[in-house]
């Protein structure tokens, strides 16, 4: 009972923060809404016997990724973006289609045939602390045995991403010089635009 109520409260917060992110005109506000959403999802993970993942979610997603977002928002001065759009029919159509997607997905999930084909899930007895399901140790074991290759691949991917990000953001030396010159001449230009 409690769990269900908690679920609905958290679900409402998640959806509300998502909608808030979508509709806010200020990018920083949107980012903060998204942080809230992530935290809510982390709480969901806790309820779903995934404590490790909940911590990872908070640390990486809400902690690192969103901070990065905020860095970039501040760097580019993109707090506000005008709302008038050149593609007038884009938004209504998108909303219609998304709702259709939602409806279809719901029907699929709730249909008996899909349920029947999935097979009966096994019930989990007890909390994560008792069974060890979802504990770091368990996940760690899997990562280093069964999923070793993806693990290593992802490591390489991160390396590549790092290098890529450095290269992309650095630009050419000339570009940097020119940009520096522009910055010197109009140092407050980027700030003004917000």
């Amino acid at each position, binding site marked *: 009972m409690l769990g269900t109520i908690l679920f609905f409260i958290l679900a409402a917060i998640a959806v509300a923060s998502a909608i808030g992110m979508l509709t806010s005109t200020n990018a920083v506000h949107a980012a903060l809404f998204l942080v809230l959403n992530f935290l809510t999802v982390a709480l969901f993970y806790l309820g779903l016997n995934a404590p490790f993942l909940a911590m990872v979610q908070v640390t990486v997603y809400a902690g690192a990724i969103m901070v990065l977002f905020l860095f970039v928002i501040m760097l580019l001065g993109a707090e506000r973006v005008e709302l008038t759009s050149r*593609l007038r029919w*884009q938004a209504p*159509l*998108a909303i219609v*289609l*998304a709702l*259709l*997607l939602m409806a*279809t*997905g719901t*029907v*699929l999930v709730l*249909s008996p*045939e*899909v349920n029947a084909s999935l097979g009966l899930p096994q019930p989990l007895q007890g909390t994560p602390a008792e069974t060890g399901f979802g504990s770091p140790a368990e996940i760690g074991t899997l990562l280093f045995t069964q999923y070793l290759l993806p693990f290593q691949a992802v490591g390489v991917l991160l390396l590549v991403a790092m290098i890529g990000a450095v290269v992309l953001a650095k630009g050419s030396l000339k570009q940097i010089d020119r940009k520096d010159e522009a910055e010197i001449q109009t140092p407050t230009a980027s700030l003004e635009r917000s």
Partner: protein
Amino acid sequence: MNGLFSLVPLIVILPFVGVLINAFFGRRLMPRRDGVAPGVIASIFSGAAFVIALLMFIALLGHREGAEVPFLTWINIEGAGLSLNIPWTFRVDTLSSVMMLVVTGVGTLIHIYAIGYMHGDIDEQIAKRGLQGDEALDFKRRRYSRFFTYFNLFLGSMLILVTGNNYLMMFVGWELVGLCSFLLIGFWFDDPTQEAGDASTAKGWLNSNAAKKAFVVNRVGDFGMLIAIFLIFWTFGTLEFDAVFSQAEALGPAAQVALGPLTFSLGAVVTVITLFLLLGATGKSAQIPLFVWLPDAMAGPTPVSALIHAATMVTAGIYMIARSNVLYAMAPVSATVVAIIGAATAFVAATMAVAQYDIKKVLAYSTISQLGFMIAAVGLGGYIAGIFHLATHAFFKALLFLGSGSVIHGMEHGHHAVAHGAEHGEHDHDEHSHPFDPQDMRQMGGLKDRMPVTTWVYIIGALALAGIPPLAGFWSKDEILADASGTNNLVYILLTVAAFFTAFYMARQVFMVFFGKPRTEAAAHAHESPPVMTVPLVILAVLSVIGGAMNLPIEGLHFLGEWLEESILHAHIGQFEPTTALLATALAVIGIVLGWLLYGREPSEEAERDPLMAAGPVFTFLNRRWYWDEAYAAVFVKPYNRFARFLADTIDWRFWHDFVHDSIIYEAFLAWSQILSRPIDLGMIDGAVNGIAEFIGGISQRLRRAQTGYVRNYALAVLLGAVVILGYIVVRFLM
């Protein structure tokens, strides 16, 4: 001696080798303008042919019946009833050996003469055309070697004619000599000399027209010959002389012959055959009615006139009749026709010769007249007399022609000397009244002092022709007259009168040309010809003197007669008739005296009229050659030309070309292709193809608008796709 006979193919092969050498290498062998290699080569091969002829003569001495030497098979068609087998077999018998010797002997002498003569002739042309330096040298080399190529070709062709053993091989030679005659008459087909800027009078046109005339007129005769050959084949089933003649002799004139559905007596058929053969002979040997080409043929260079139109080609008709003596013996009607035509021609041509001014034309009509003598002889059955006269005539007529060539060259040299002198200030008396013509006897005169050798050999030739004993012409002409007197009075009278005229016109010519004072500066400055030309003249003069010894009408000295009896079945040795001989000689002397009276005693000035013009219209009639050519032109040539023009212009050009081709075929095709190209090709096919392309273009133009460039639109499209797929799955599987 049979081995010697087998050499006879060489007599034809050697001249043709000369042809090939001169044709392909002649120019290269003549590095300098005065080079003579082609002429010498041609003369060598001609001389080699003469050697072969001599060898044949020697071989025949032991085997007078002759031999047939097969060379190759030309046509061999086996038929059901009739099979045609024409081999190229050489017939060496006494008749053909006489012909061979005359042709190659006189031919070689003329070849040698031509070595020198053609140099002068070509130089004349070079001067007329104003060629210089390398151009002149190239011109000379080309023409000189070309001349001797043709000359040797003629020799080979004539030898094919006389050595064939069947009518068709003879005809091959017959046609070939006609071709060579055409080529050589029209040798200067591009002579640019013309009157007063009128290009249509260019001598080149005259020359090529003369060549054309010779060929066309000969064609008429050849037509007759072909009909005769067809009839011979149809009647006898073969064309070989021996086979035909033995069949004819065996069957006799009364035998019945089936030609198709009709039957005739052999005599009648042979009469028809021999009349058609006569037609061929009148063409080739220039008798009435087909003699008109020979005077025009004087347009060719003088050696050509000498060799072809005096000594050899024109005698082909006589040879043919002599060869066919068996057939003529079976058809006395045609024999008489032959004789009458020959005699008539002799008379008519002699009268024409009396009134001519051109030195070569006189000789041309003289030739026609003498050929008439020969034809009359063989018509009367006097084959030996005819062949005898053929041989002696070859000697002195060739001599006279070559002599006239020498005179002409002398006149041209004189003309050049005068012109050259005029440049140096000497007064030129010549060109006032009329243009210079080196062949016009009225512009000659007194040449005996300037050209002694030519003069004396010419006089010898003239006397031989006139029939003055003991020169060769007397014996041969007399034998003919003797044959005629006993056989046919009309023929005899015509021939005798012709003989009188012969003496007269020759005397006229000799006195006009060589005696008296030179009537023009050119004549005054003429000079003698070089030895390469005068030596053959002398040789021919000697032959003209002693030639009669071939067949003296004295027992035991009928060499030629006995010789020919082996080949000619119906030959008979002539008898010597003193009265005839005396009468003929007297008439000849009278003729010469008359000539001296009119032309020799008071040699006329250039401007004076010919004394004979006192005869008024008669003279004009003779001078205009009895208006024979004009008559032919009106009766045959003009209507034919009109008809040909009608066919060409109206039928061929306007109807066939303009109407059928242009209007019907061309227009229809054009219309059809218009239809195909515009509506069908452009409209439908292009429309279809372009339409497809445009359609696709239109579609893609519309589809392009999906590529807006906005990322969000693309994402929307992805979402749309996802929704569609999911919806499909839901609808399909779950509903």
